[in-house]
């Protein structure tokens, strides 16, 4: 048997996914919560969009920019939150010691959390996309291939941030919990979700263009306003995401190593 953490068992990943699924379906308020906020956000921005478009020729020609932005932002935000909440469940349940002492590898643990992030996102977002069609005639699915490119890039960023936060939680315990809930809001102004990058001060534009989601939101505006799919932006985002994701996995493994050195995996140890 390998000494490293790189041997991979789909069976163990499936065990963890099963465990999170049991948790999810054991509480209907948690299930409802997955749909509640995306629906509220979509309705609020949708009605705002309706109002603005009736008073502005520019926005009338760019129907769906706000709703599209809010839906894509939710993929980014709730993708990370779905990852982090599944991880936090282990800390809340004081179950990390059991898992770390089991044959479960860190890579398998991360894979299970990524799968659950998609499961939670699907439960929350798919109904909301149909509500957007019903209320505002905005069909996210009509973006087709572009939507797939947007989704891949956003979910990769959300996982990278989720993995990094999980490492911080391992290393620093529940003191780092607030990071799980708030870290993505740092990306909200910088990734230009609701406005073009050109709006930012010149020096801040460099920061914005170093973040993969910025390319996605610019790409979405190009699609909805100019009706052009910017494949170049998606490839640049993917390149940044590969670096970000690799860096996050590396940081997670280093923070796990540090947690073992600090003894923080076994809460309450004497």
């Amino acid at each position, binding site marked *: 048997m390998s000494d490293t953490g790189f041997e991979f068992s789909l069976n163990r990943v*499936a*065990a963890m996914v099963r465990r999170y699924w049991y948790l999810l379906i054991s*509480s209907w308020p948690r299930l409802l919560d997955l749909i509640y906020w995306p629906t509220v956000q979509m309705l609020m921005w949708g009605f705002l969009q309706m109002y603005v478009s009736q008073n502005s020729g520019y926005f009338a020609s760019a129907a769906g920019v706000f709703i599209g932005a809010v839906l894509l932002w939710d993929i980014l935000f709730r993708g990370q939150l779905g990852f982090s909440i599944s991880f936090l469940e282990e800390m809340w349940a004081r*179950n990390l010691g059991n898992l770390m002492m*089991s044959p*479960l*590898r860190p890579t398998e643990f991360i894979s299970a959390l990524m799968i659950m992030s998609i499961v939670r996102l699907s439960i929350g977002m798919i109904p909301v996309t149909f509500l957007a069609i019903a209320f505002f005639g905005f069909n996210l699915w009509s973006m087709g291939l572009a939507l797939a490119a947007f989704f891949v890039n956003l979910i990769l960023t959300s996982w990278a941030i989720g993995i990094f936060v999980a490492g911080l939680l391992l290393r620093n315990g529940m003191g780092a919990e607030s990071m799980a809930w708030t870290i993505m809001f740092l990306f909200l102004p910088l990734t230009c979700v609701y406005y073009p990058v050109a709006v930012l001060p010149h020096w801040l534009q460099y920061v914005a263009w170093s973040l993969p989601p910025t390319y996605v939101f610019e790409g979405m505006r190009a699609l909805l306003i100019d009706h052009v799919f910017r494949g170049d932006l998606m490839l640049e985002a993917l390149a940044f995401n590969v670096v970000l994701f690799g860096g996050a996995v590396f940081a997670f493994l280093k923070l796990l190593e540090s947690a*073992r*050195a600090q003894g923080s995996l076994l809460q309450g140890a*004497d």
Partner: protein
Amino acid sequence: MDLAAASAIAVENLVKRYKAATAVDGISFQLPAGTVTGLLGGNGAGKTTTIAMIMGLVTPTAGTVSVLGAQMPKQRYRVLHRMNFESPYVDMPMRLTVRQNLSVFAQLYAVPDAAGRIASLAADLDLTEFLDRPAGKLSAGQKTRVSLAKSLLNRPDVLLLDEPTASLDPDTADWVRARLERYRTETGATILLASHNMNEVERLCERVIIMKKGRIEDDDTPARLLARYGRETLEDVFLDVARGRDREVTA
């Protein structure tokens, strides 16, 4: 003869320092396969940290730990499927039922015929009627039995127990000890048991390691410890060591 290779657990000059505090201070011992050893000591003696280093959950500052021939924590994935543990410092997800919890761990440990193994453990540990109850709705004694069931799921060759009967009433505690004795007899597993309960250690352990302030103060069979300290119970021996009277006794 290489003692580390011959022992189920071999600890050599093990040290763990947390900033200014030294939790474990240069301890060494070997546990032959199939033995039950008690790790005694007061709060802060370093028992839990020692067990955590044996499990690979904590990296030693210095020294080595070998379990079933694998160096911990570096080679832990060679042996984790042959080990298990129970500790009051970890818990199981409360919203999951006992059966769901056990089945997830059975899959993680790749236990063959998981459903049959869970049913058999549940019958053995008197858990059958609680299998479909959420873990959070069990009493302390029932939770301990579930944790014990989890620790026995994979029929471990090395079983590490940290205060396995803490918070149990005397009857349930005695019942748990009987199950542990039977498991050792049936499987020949090596058991290391950290405890404050002297009756438990006297009953289960053929060897006792007494720790104080991160060091091993004494290490022998219960009978020889009683004889050496001139005491009738291990509790008196423990108090002698805890209060520093051991030096007077052995002087």
